[in-house]
Structure formats: C-alpha cells, structure tokens
C-alpha cells in the first residue's frame, strides 16, 4: 500500500492552445498538508479538479490513496472532499438540507447523516442559521457551509481550492484551526492558495506553481530561507533617488537589494534590524524616500526570487497578492 495520499506524475492538461498544466509531478504523504502556491491562472485549480475527478487529464497520471483518478474515479470520489473557489451550494435549500443532500449523494448511511450535519453546523457556527434558506446567508456564511459540506462524509483526503479567499480574519483563523485539527486526526489536505502566509502556516510542503509547471517544491522553511523573512520596500517619486539609494545600500546592509524603477526592495533574514540599518544609511546620506513599508514576503516576492519576474506581468508592486483575474500569467 502506498504511503502517499496523492501521487501525480507528468500531469498535462490543455484548453485548446492554452497549456493549463505542462507536466507536473507531486507526492503528498498521508496525514500532511500540502500547499499549491501560485497566482491566478497558474494551473492550481486545474490540478485540483483533475485530482477530484471533475476533469480528465490529457496526459500523465494521478492517484488518490492508490486509486487512479480516471480509471477508478468512483473509488476516488468515495475518498475525497472538495471545497471549490466559489460556494457550491444550493441557495434554495437550508444549510441543514444542503449538508443532508451531500451526505446522501456521498453514500453515507442514512442514520449517520443528520447527526453529522448538526455536528458540522455547530462546528462552523451556523447552528442558528441552519434552517434558513442559503439565500439569506452572507458570503462568509456560504463559504463556511461549503467547507462544511466537503467534510460531511469524513473524507480521508480533502481538497481545498483557495479556501480562505473572501473570508474575514476571524473566519479565516477558525478555518485554519479546523484544518489543523483534521490533519491531527489523520486527514490529508491539499490546499491551493495565493497567500504565502497561509501556505507557510499550514503546509508541511509547498509546491510553487507558475504557468502550469512546478517551479519549486520544498518545505516552507527552506523556501523562506531562500527568500528572506522580512521585506523593506521604499519608493521614490524620482528615479535618481532610487538609483542613489540602491547603490548606497547594496553591499552595505545585510540583505538583498533590488530596484524596480522607483521602488527599492530589500529582502533580509535579519528581521527588524534591517530596517534600522536602511534608515540610518539613508539618513546619513540625506536621502528621503516618499513611502516606506515593512512586510512579510508575499507571493510576488517568492516569484521574483524563483523566476525573476512578478507573479503577474502587468501587476504593480503591491502589498497584497492579486485576486480576481484570470490568465494573467507572467
């Protein structure tokens, strides 16, 4: 028996001319969280949809708990839970009715379904709204119910496609705790995300996906050590300011200096110390930046470090990863 919950070899998927997956390999050990990190259009969702037996691949193979996703799709479907990017629920049914339907269609024995639904409604703090049609739910409540629906049958393997997109901070933290609890109970989770922070917090391993290819597959610690844990970003309205600052700082501070027109990005493992050094150096030379920000590395920084280009070609350097655009591959 395989010790891998998910095993993917040379997986290929085309949409006409567009290559969604250009041959990816992945292995996810049982009982771990695996993160697929990448921008919109990178191929994350396509990979998850193939693993969840919704799409057929054009090449390569994929197995879930030793069952081929094409030839043994029914067996795979009995072992997985899926929560997609948008809430796949019936707006006319109540929360409880939605979970009941998923329980039946998930081939759960009838006597187990209603207690399980009540348990999940309680866990996701939807008990008060359980018997209201979903049309009356807020966006966050719908997403929570969608995730609850993916857990009804207690699947040993769970696919979560950008599970926290659109959730507020409290719901996001609650979901993270739920995921950690599930994994502690033996569930394997594969999640896609655009947030390095999320992948870092939850995943034992992260595969960085870009343009349908896996460009890195490593532990979060190793990825971040290549990257630096703190990013200082300073912007100048005038280019000569950023040029002067770049030549001044390069080699003089303990970090990697990068210039992108008027923006200077200093990446370092030195924590807050780097900020003090940068400010001292600038002040001593009488250079005043127009804006200054200190932050954790974002997906865009991962991309810059790994590929030398931004996560999205037409994206301005931004503190937040980009959302809501398709096909923006760099």
């Amino acid at each position: 028996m395989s010790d891998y919950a998910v095993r993917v070899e040379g997986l290929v998927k085309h949409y006409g001319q567009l290559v969604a997956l250009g041959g990816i390999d992945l292995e996810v050990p049982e009982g771990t969280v695996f993160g697929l990190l990448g921008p919109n259009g990178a191929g994350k969702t396509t990979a998850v949809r193939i693993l969840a037996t919704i799409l057929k691949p054009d090449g390569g193979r994929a197995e879930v708990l030793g069952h081929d996703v094409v030839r043994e799709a029914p067996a795979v479907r009995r072992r997985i839970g899926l929560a997609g990017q948008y809430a796949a629920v019936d707006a006319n049914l109540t929360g409880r009715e939605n979970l009941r339907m998923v329980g039946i269609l998930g081939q759960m024995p009838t006597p187990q379904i209603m207690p399980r639904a009540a348990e999940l409604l309680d866990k996701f703090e939807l008990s008060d709204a359980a018997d209201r049609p979903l049309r009356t739910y807020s966006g966050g409540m719908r997403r929570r119910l969608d995730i609850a629906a993916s857990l009804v049958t207690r699947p040993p393997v769970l696919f979560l496609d950008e599970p926290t997109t659109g959730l507020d901070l409290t719901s996001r933290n609650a979901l993270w705790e739920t995921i950690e609890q599930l994994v502690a109970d033996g569930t394997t989770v594969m999640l896609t995300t655009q947030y390095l922070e999320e992948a870092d917090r939850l995943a034992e391993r992260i595969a960085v996906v870009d343009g349908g290819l896996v460009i890195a597959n490593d532990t979060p610690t190793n990825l971040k050590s290549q990257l630096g844990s703190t990013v200082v970003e300073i912007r100048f309205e005038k280019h000569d300011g950023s040029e002067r600052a770049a030549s001044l700082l390069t080699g003089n501070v303990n970090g990697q200096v990068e210039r992108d027109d008027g923006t200077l990005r200093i990446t370092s493992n030195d924590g807050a110390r780097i900020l003090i050094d940068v400010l001292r150096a600038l002040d001593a030379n009488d250079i005043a930046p127009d804006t200054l920000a200190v932050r954790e590395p974002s997906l865009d920084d991962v991309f810059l470090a790994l590929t030398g280009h931004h996560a999205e070609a037409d994206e301005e350097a931004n503190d937040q990863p980009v959302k809501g655009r398709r096909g923006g591959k760099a």
Partner: protein
Amino acid sequence: MSTAQVAIERDVIDRRIPMGRLRDTSAVIKRNLLQYIRVPQLLVFSTVQPIIFVLMFRFVFGGSINTGPIPYVDYLMPGIFLQVVVFGSLATAIGLATDLKSGLMERFHALPMWTPAVLVGRTLADLLRNFFVVILMMVVGFLVGWRIHTTLLALVPGVLIVLLFGYAMSWIFATIGLAVKDPETAQAAAFPILAPLVFASASFVQVENMPGWLQPWSRNQPVSVTAETFRALTIGGPTQLLVVKAILWSALIIAIFAPIAVRLYRKAV
C-alpha cells in the same frame, strides 16, 4: 485515530448503500421540488400565462375559430395542456444551466453518486411540477366550460400521454441547458424549438386552415399527435393508432436526447 481504525474506515468507504441509485435520484428530486416551495413565485407566474391563454382563446379568439360540431373549448383545452407541459419543461434547461453556473454541478461531479441521478432527478421533478400544473389547468378548463364527451376515466390515459410528452421535452431541454450552460441563453435558444412545436400545430387551431406546405409537419409533429390523442380520448373517435403514435414520438425523443444529455453532463464542468 489509530492506523487500525483508519484501515477499518477505509473498508467501510466502498460499501454500497442498498437502492443507492433510487436514494440519489430522490434526493435530487426533493432538492428541485423544494425550489418551487421556497420560491413559489416561479410556479405562480408560470401558471398565470396559460390561464391568460385559456381566457383569451376561449373568449376572444374562440368565436372566430370554427371547429365544426365540437365546441371550441373542448378542442382548445388539450392544446393548452400540451402548451403548459412543453413550456414547463423549459424549466429543465434553465435549472440545469443555473446549477452549472453556480458551481453546484462541480460538487455533484466529485461525489460518489449515480451520475445520471442529477438529470433523472431534475426531469422527474419537472414531471411532477407539470402534473400539478396540468391538474390546475383542468380545473380552469372546467370553470370555462370544458366538458368530457366520453368517460371521465379517459382522462387517465390522456394525462399520462401528455405528461410523457412533457417528460420527453425535458430531455431535449436538458440537452440545450447543458450545451449552452447559461440560463438566459438557454431560454433564448429554446424559443426557436418551442414556437414551431407549440404554434405550428393542432394545439389551438385546425391544421386544415394552414398553407399546404406546412400541413404535413403540423399534422404529424409530436405536439399535434399528442393533442389529437387527448381529443380522441375525451371527445370521441378512434384512439388506438393515435395512442401508439404519441407514445412512439415521446419514446423516440427520450431515446435520442437522454444519452446526449448524459454525455454532455459528464463533460459539462
């Protein structure tokens, strides 16, 4: 959870539920019928239109339409029943296209359910809805003077044949809904099919008064055949051949469109 426990649960995972297909299908039927209870406007407005049709044809146009010795209202009502089931079956296209858009189909595709249950459940729910609307229209018909000349029992085969045809239409509309994948487009795409079927037929007027080139179609197309069957059953005349023709039409439509719809559904997401 211990490894042994996990192993036991893995075994349970593949256990089949007895009558699983039936259970899947009835879950889908229930879900689709709940929609009509939760959004009753859907049903109310879809019955207002045929009631207006009945009143209009009975009291406005009826006087100018000559159906010989048969009172026009007795000619009209079978046509109305056909109209309501055909237009009612349009709900299949809109419903499936809506589910595709909402992402619900994606969830269904990843569940270990009997795949055709999504379509069988949907079409059966629309059949039940059609049954309700036909009963309602019969009541409306009786109120405006519709009478049965043969025996009341003739209504049983009559209604069954009309509902069977509506069910067959649901499979045509299921195919359209899954092909266009958008509720508004589905509605627009359905009209060119609905119009020649419902209006170029013996639903409201006699075929004899149509131009010669149109008559072969109007006389033999399924809506006309089914309406004429209902008339023969409730007004009088030979019924056997008509019943056979009506059933064959519906069976043919289902035999062609059900496999296409199931194939489209498998590839729909």
